């Protein structure tokens, strides 16, 4: 079984992106005979007697005629134990918007730079967009390096220049001089991509955030099913999650044998379309700092779509947007998948911009203090005794989170304990209550209470 790895290929026009991708497809045995014949026909019409590798990629008539890439091309190839999904981007300034689309979908990329011509403004612009969309791994390919044969110093100088540029960002990068035409170093590029694919799979594996935006909830034969869009991890049975905007907490009672993004909960609570559930801090706000890439003219009547909410834009400046309702998001630098939205013109319904949420503070949750008590719920009598003691001590009704419902997963996964703690903090925050009781069967942390001073 294969791993799926998405990466973009970007860079200035004519620096040889499509040619390089064509070479990667060819060398990994992913071009079929009829595709080759088709590309040869197109190459001949353009006055070339051998196959131009770019013809394997450029699919639109206008692209073949003008020999440029206008729109992102999606290509797929299998190599090693990986399914590669390449998003080949256009290099022309006027099609930069299409490059941004691709960058949102990937976490790694190839940046192509013509070894003879060097770094172009458009290259910088593309690298900027890669950074804006939090791409982690960048493989810089200095293409057409066969034309500089014997001029090693020139390549070394360009490498240095690229290094200086990339060091101003936070990429994990590699620079490789290549020639797509002769095949020089193409294998190295493939190796690098395989490394990136493995690193990216590891990153995903290490992520523990559960974030879902709700699509629908429905009753079937007396039980309620919830459906949502999974932004980070999918919840598992026993997960204890905060619901936005209501502020209540739910425990997942069932995900087994249900489709992706579908679950049931213990509580009888309505989570409606547009709501969000999560086990990690989520920013809830209608005033948001952002950076936007425009695809079209900005409109007076705009909608912002994020998660499963579509809200009206009340006020817009280059740095801040004000919406007529809250959305539930993260800064793109924290959780990429939950860190951007799209602007839709409310009249034409066209997508006119992509808006990245950045440097927002979580205002609702700052400096709180409270006490959480852990009690043993395996013994009912003892449990009541302890609760009565606490009631007497604090003259309030303690709020109980019962960890025993998620006993099995707790042993496997510390993220559930964190989720409970977060949930506890949330209650301290929203209800001004400073005593929280967490019930558990057996596993009680050292000491009988934990003082929670600051939000995680």
């Amino acid at each position, binding site marked *: *079984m*294969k*791993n*799926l790895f998405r990466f973009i290929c970007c860079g200035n026009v004519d620096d040889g992106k499509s040619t390089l991708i064509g070479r990667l497809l060819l060398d990994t045995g992913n071009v*079929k*005979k*009829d*595709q080759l014949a*088709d590309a040869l*026909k*197109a190459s001949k019409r353009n006055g070339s007697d051998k196959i131009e590798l770019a013809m394997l*990629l450029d*699919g*639109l*008539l*206008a692209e*073949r005629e003008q020999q440029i890439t*206008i*729109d*992102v*091309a*999606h*290509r*797929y190839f*299998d190599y090693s134990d990986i*399914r590669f999904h390449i998003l080949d981007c256009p290099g022309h300034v006027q099609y930069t918007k*299409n490059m*941004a*689309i691709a960058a*949102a*979908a990937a976490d790694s990329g190839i940046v192509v730079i013509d070894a003879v011509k060097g770094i172009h403004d458009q290259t910088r612009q593309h690298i900027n967009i890669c950074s804006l969309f939090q791409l982690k791994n960048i493989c810089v390919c200095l293409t057409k390096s066969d034309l500089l044969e014997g001029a090693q110093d020139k390549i070394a100088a360009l490498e240095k220049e690229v290094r200086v540029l990339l060091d101003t960002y936070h990429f994990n990068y590699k620079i490789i001089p290549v020639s797509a035409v002769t095949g020089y170093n193409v294998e190295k590029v493939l190796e690098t991509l395989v490394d990136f694919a493995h690193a990216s799979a590891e990153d*995903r594996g290490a992520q523990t955030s559960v974030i879902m935006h709700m*699509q*629908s909830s*429905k009753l*079937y034969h007396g039980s309620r*099913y919830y*459906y949502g*869009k*999974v*932004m980070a991890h999918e919840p598992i049975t026993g997960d204890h999650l905060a619901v936005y905007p209501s502020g209540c907490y739910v425990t997942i009672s069932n995900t087994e044998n249900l*489709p*992706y*993004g*579908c679950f049931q909960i213990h509580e009888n609570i309505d989570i409606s*379309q547009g709501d969000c559930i999560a086990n990690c801090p989520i920013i809830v706000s209608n005033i948001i700092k952002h950076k936007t890439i425009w*695809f079209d003219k900005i409109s007076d009547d705009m909608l912002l*779509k*994020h998660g*499963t909410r579509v809200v009206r834009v009340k006020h817009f400046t280059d740095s801040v947007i004000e919406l007529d309702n809250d959305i539930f998001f993260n800064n793109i630098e924290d959780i990429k*998948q939950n860190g*951007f939205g*799209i602007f*839709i013109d409310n*009249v*034409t*319904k*066209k*997508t006119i911009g*992509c808006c990245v949420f950045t440097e927002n503070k979580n205002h609702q949750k700052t400096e709180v203090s409270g006490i959480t008590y852990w009690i043993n719920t395996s013994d009912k009598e003892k449990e009541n005794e302890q609760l009565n003691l606490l009631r007497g001590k604090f003259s309030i009704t303690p709020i109980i989170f019962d960890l025993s419902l998620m006993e099995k997963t707790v042993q496997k996964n510390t993220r559930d304990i964190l989720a409970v703690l977060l949930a506890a903090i949330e209650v301290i925050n929203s209800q001004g209550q400073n005593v929280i009781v967490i019930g558990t069967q057996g596993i009680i942390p050292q000491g009988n209470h934990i003082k929670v001073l600051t939000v995680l």
Partner: protein
Amino acid sequence: MTTHLDVLENESIELIRDVCYTNDCSKIVIFYSIGKDSSVLLHLFKKAFYPFPIPVRFMHIDTGWKFREMYEFRDRIAKEVDLIVYKNPACLNPFTDGPRYTDVMKTEALKQAVDLYDVKIAFGGSRRDEEKSRAKERMVSVRNEYHKWDPRNQNPEIPPLYNTFYTDKTSLRVFPLSNWTELDIWEYIKREQIEVVPLYFAKERRVQKTQTGMYIATENETGELLKVRFRTLGCYPLTGAIVSEAETLDEIIAELKKTEYTERITRVIDYDTESSMEKKKTDGYF
């Protein structure tokens, strides 16, 4: 471990739900072509809304020239789902009407059906790996009031934030299988035990050779008896068979891993001129 098939399945299910939950389902149809991709699409729709029934209708644009086995399969599926069958009353003949046949019986028929049933959103099983112009198409693709595709002026698409809005003047085509390859389709059919038309499996069948060297099915006794299967299914006079020994899903998967040609060579409609699919699509073909 999450495999590539899981990722593809999850993305498709999310898109399907996103479109159906944010729009009036009576304006949505699923174009059902009876082929393997349609079978997978149907399966994904069942999964997406489980345990509820699929909330939208299926629509088959019939030409009257499909394989007998396809009609049998379709009629069985029709007992399970809400299926509309539409056929252009012009009733052209692929043998005698030439290229006009596809235009009238498929492209025109599709536009007529969309207008007749007031469809604003149509799902389809197209994949980007099928053809180069498809490789450029969005998963949610806008059509103008004449059902035309403008490849140079597409809506920017940033998954998973699909723009599922349409206006009085536009309608949408949605392709949940965009990122799937032919091999993925078969591996998924195997994994999920999805039923497909038996024509996909190799068996001795009567065929005749066309002028272009393609084998097409025939019921004429003079036809050659060959062990063949079909990689794609459509109108039988326009669908080429391939000589094959692949009788099981495992054998089909093994055959695909070795094949030197794409499935497109078995389609007369795609293969006549370079970029012909783009032209058909800009005219309103699916």
